């Protein structure tokens, strides 16, 4: 049988599943950012008419899923699989949101790399012939993440300059067999990389080695280099992680050619008080389904590599002084 596994850690999708529709929802702070015009819905507030922040995140994800299905014109039953995840313990946002849809569901946890993980698995399902239509989705919410990973919301603490601001929102992507451009062409599945980072207020430093590892592996597996992509987009390395990544890539012999952006940095206006930038599953999820997808459709860019970066920590592991390993999954999306 012909293998679709390429090199050390990569796969190629011979049937190149297409991205049929996307939908993005963000909070007000994200809506004020430079990508504000690219999002489908900007919420006026983060509580979204709900009683708890967790319910608000779930509602955001449900809305994102409903809308991407409605936009596509298909019945929910026509979707073969839903692949979704979020940051909350036991991925309750994705699990509970999935209860609203009659779609076979895989819950994923890849921390902030979830949307890339979902896209890779979704493309594999389609390319393997197991599905015709798959939705990949991820959500995060600033307030639910604060509550779970940091402090009570009204607690008056000072953040260090390396801290990041969790993006509120969700991005949903509908993949279809034989679908239109842009297409998912190949991917590199990351290894978990642990280089001894321990600071939960500096996740960029924790994730950058994983990002470098996956990107370098991607270029080696496909005998490509950074110039082969119009844009290389990382999820949420923030300013610290991006700066480290640039040096790591340079040292590995794959320097960026001014074509690297990080959704965590780009999503917020520079005068927002977000320190090293944004983070969260939604950073890359809305970055792709909002900003990048529209640029691909408009022909402004043709070939991008999106690299979801996840910091694999829990409040418990941090308190027990464990290291924070990182993981990064890269997906190539191209207009062919």
């Amino acid at each position: 049988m012909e293998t679709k596994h390429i090199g050390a850690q990569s796969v190629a999708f011979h049937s190149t599943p297409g991205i049929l529709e996307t939908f993005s929802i963000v909070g007000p702070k994200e809506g004020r950012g430079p990508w504000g015009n690219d999002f489908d819905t900007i919420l006026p507030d983060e509580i979204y008419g709900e009683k708890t922040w967790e319910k608000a995140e779930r509602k955001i994800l449900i809305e994102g899923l409903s809308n991407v299905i409605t936009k596509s014109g298909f019945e929910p039953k026509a979707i073969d699989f839903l692949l979704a995840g979020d940051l909350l313990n036991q991925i309750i946002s994705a699990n509970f949101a999935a209860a609203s849809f009659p779609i076979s569901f895989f819950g994923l946890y890849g921390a902030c790399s979830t949307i890339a993980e979902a896209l890779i698995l979704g493309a594999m399902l389609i390319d393997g012939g197991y599905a015709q239509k798959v939705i990949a989705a991820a959500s995060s919410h600033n307030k639910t993440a604060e509550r779970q990973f940091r402090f009570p919301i009204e607690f008056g603490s000072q953040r260090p300059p390396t801290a990041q601001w969790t993006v509120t929102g969700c991005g949903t992507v509908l993949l279809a067999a034989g679908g239109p451009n842009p297409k998912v062409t190949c991917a590199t599945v990351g290894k978990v990389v642990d280089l001894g980072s321990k600071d939960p207020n500096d996740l960029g430093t924790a994730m950058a080695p994983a990002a470098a590892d996956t990107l370098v592996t991607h270029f080696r597996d496909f005998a490509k280099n950074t110039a082969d992509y119009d844009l290389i987009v990382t999820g949420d390395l923030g300013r610290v992680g991006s700066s480290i990544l640039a040096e790591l890539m340079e040292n590995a012999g794959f320097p960026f050619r001014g074509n690297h952006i990080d959704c965590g940095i780009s999503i917020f206006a520079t005068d927002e008080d977000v320190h090293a930038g944004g983070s969260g599953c939604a950073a890359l999820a809305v970055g792709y389904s909002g900003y990048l997808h529209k640029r691909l459709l408009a022909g402004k860019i043709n070939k991008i590599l999106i690299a979801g970066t996840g910091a694999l920590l829990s409040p418990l592991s941090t308190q027990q002084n464990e290291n924070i390993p990182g993981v990064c999954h890269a997906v190539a999306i191209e207009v062919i």
Partner: protein
Amino acid sequence: MTEQSQAYQKLAQDHIPKPNYLKNTVNAFWVGGLICVVGQVFNNWFIAQGIAKSTAGAYTAITMIFIGALLTGLGVYDEIGKVGGAGSAIPITGFANTIVAAAMDFKAEGYVLGMAAQMYKIAGPVITYGITSAILAGLVQWLIWR
């Protein structure tokens, strides 16, 4: 740590911005100082009302706790904390902030196992070690001056 980890952490250090200690210290000084001045004004006012000096101290503490709690409920104290840092965390208003912020947050998980159980999440260690150190200090005093 492995050699590779050590090399990476060394490389990363050059990219990690340091907090602006001077600015943070100055802000902590004036924010903390301002909170103390407000407390002193109340203290003087209570004494001027003819309240005994020792009782006026308790009244002042109660008033400042109320203000800290109110500003937390109004969503202002976290903004003060962002600027003031230790200056707004150390005074008794900061202590009120830790309890009220936690109580507000955990109300969603119910009044018993949520709010009541979790409201000391941040303040708890302060109470525990505060009492422990008070007992130790009392013991030392007793040993020296009994």
